[in-house]
């Protein structure tokens, strides 16, 4: 059922046109943040307004939409956004990555490789990769114009010098087309390599910060690193407890009072497809030991000794 009080996909056609124009510019200059006249949406800022505006501007009646948050289709905010588009466009929605033509995402890139006929739309909270090093926009715009990214390299170097490793686990900075430093949005660095030479068009929307940017298909995307400290992604000692996958990004759940952990795929569609294909995981929760934890002392003994 479509809500006929609003235009198709909520935004008026002029606004959509303005956003599409900004998107064209973004595609023409990969990784460059294009300022755009972000509108107030019936979603709170920080809850996907940028991604929603992009989706609303490019969605057509023939599209099939998938919305994920943390890799899953059934997280509350993903449900809410999907319902919004179902109500305002009436387009078909899906949970299957392979079926979707548009995928709006928060914090993940699907495990299944994307194709040239798909568009991935990222919700971006803080589009400026330099923001934690230089809070002023007026300054960072200049730094991008001059490709002045030394500050970021120094920051990564300091991480290594002080802690032995680069301590960015998500929102790990990338160079797009060897020109613009870009925030990949808070995806885990595990997903960074998927952006490189991806056949799908990748669009990024930051509603509150009023910026759009893009990675056109088959664009080189390099995660920053050093020759002696090459970029690496997260690895787990465990497989997915449900589907047995050893190469997907895992979510950790605490399943009992003892603190046992269950690891399962964060990409719910990927996990389900594997299970349907007959893969089975260990169904086991595991107990983790912290490297620095003090060994457990038997409290009764200690009390008796004290007495």
């Amino acid at each position: 059922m479509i809500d006929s009080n609003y235009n198709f996909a909520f935004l008026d056609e002029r606004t959509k046109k303005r956003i599409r124009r900004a998107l064209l510019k973004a595609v023409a200059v990969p990784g460059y943040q294009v300022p755009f006249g972000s509108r107030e949406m019936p979603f709170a800022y920080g809850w996907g307004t940028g991604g929603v505006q992009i989706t609303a501007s490019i969605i057509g009646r023939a599209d099939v939409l998938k919305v994920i948050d943390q890799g899953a289709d059934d997280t509350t905010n993903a449900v809410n956004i999907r319902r919004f588009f179902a109500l305002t466009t009436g387009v078909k929605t899906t949970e299957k990555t392979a079926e979707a033509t548009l995928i709006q995402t928060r914090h993940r890139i699907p495990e299944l490789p994307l194709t040239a006929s798909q568009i991935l739309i990222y919700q971006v909270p803080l589009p400026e990769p330099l923001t934690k090093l230089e809070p002023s926009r007026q300054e960072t715009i200049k730094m991008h114009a001059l490709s002045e990214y030394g500050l970021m390299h120094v920051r990564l170097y300091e991480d290594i010098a002080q802690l032995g490793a680069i301590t960015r686990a998500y929102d790990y900075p990338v160079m797009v087309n060897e020109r613009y430093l870009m925030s990949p949005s808070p995806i885990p660095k595990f997903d960074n390599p998927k952006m490189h030479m991806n056949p799908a068009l990748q669009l990024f929307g930051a509603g509150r910060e009023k910026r759009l940017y893009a990675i056109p298909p088959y664009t080189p995307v390099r995660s920053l690193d050093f020759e002696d400290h090459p970029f690496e992604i997260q690895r787990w000692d465990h497989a997915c407890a449900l589907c047995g996958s050893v190469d997907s990004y895992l979510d950790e759940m605490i399943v009992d009072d003892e603190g046992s952990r269950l690891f399962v795929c964060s990409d719910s569609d990927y996990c389900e497809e594997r299970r349907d294909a007959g893969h089975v995981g260990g169904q086991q929760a595991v107990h983790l030991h912290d490297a620095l934890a003090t060994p457990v002392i038997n409290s009764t003994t200690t009390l008796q000794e004290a007495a």
Partner: protein
Amino acid sequence: MYVAVKGGAAAIESSWRLLEDQRRGDTAMAALTVAQIQEQLSLAVDRVMSEGSLYDPELAALAIKQSSGDLVEAIFLLRAYRTTLPRLGYALPLDTARIALLRRISATFKEVPGGQMLGPTYDYTQRLLDFTLLVEGEHRDASAPSSNPSNKLSEAGIAVHRGPLPTVPRINDLLAREGLLETPQPEMVAPPGDLTRDPLMFPADRALRLQALARGDEGWLLAMGYSTQRGYANSHPFAGEIRRGFVSVALVPDELGFEIDIGDLEITECQMINQFSGSREVPPQFTQGYGLAFGGSERKTMAMALVDRSLRADELGETRTAPAQDAEFVLSHADNVEASGFVQHLKLPHYVDFQAELELVRKLRTSHAMAKKENT
């Protein structure tokens, strides 16, 4: 066999129902009407209209009802509605000298042309809880300071419609005539920008800064303005004039080519006058800060005027030393719809990012433990 938790959709639907229960409260009590809110919580309505950037008392009252009195949420509702409205055109600048006054005071001159008019204000009430209001129904004591002539206010508004607006000269204009007060002129290279159509970029000119301040959060502006009084930027302000009343809005439609009056607005305007010792080029004179908001919004407009003045530091050749002089800092954080959304987005799941951090911290702890072992 473990099954991942599902049911986001069902949870959302239950949450809507609970929210509706929370909004309605005890059903044994009569429901509040939108008209009651509009009439009896009028200052809340004014704030929601100002920060919601939409002059519509009825819809603002509806938003307050729907949000159970959470004004920032009400402002958000009004903004989300406003964004769907077509843009008919831009009104002519308001002439606030032509005004049906409800209140007008100057702290700089004892007598002013047009006179001082106290009007409705909390300033000289005793701030004692009026327990007679606890009793249902009308128990008005005409002599009590709390009696609020709210009906008379709307009558004054209606009177405006019938006759031409009286002219009450602005004190700033009188001072400017003698050259004692600077008269900043907009750089008319282009029509003023529109914050709601294009993103705010820095440096922002005064027109854009004032737009951002007008829809800015009252609490934020109050704190920022207050900081300038406490030495974080020195402003030496005087409340040159505060006026509240009804002014008319005029528009020149493209099809007609002449001015038509499209209605009245209730506004509060504040002109702050600030000391300025002058520079090599400019003789000593007073400078100004400006505040304007819908309805009775005196606190907001006074704070806005203080912040407007402090943000003019560059223009007046002052060194920027305080947060309230940094336009990017002040204006990027002034919008409560943006701020509230982003602060509260931390409620959304961050499992994936947190997992990434967990993996990292565990790895760092393992290498820390190994380094410790090697050292012992």
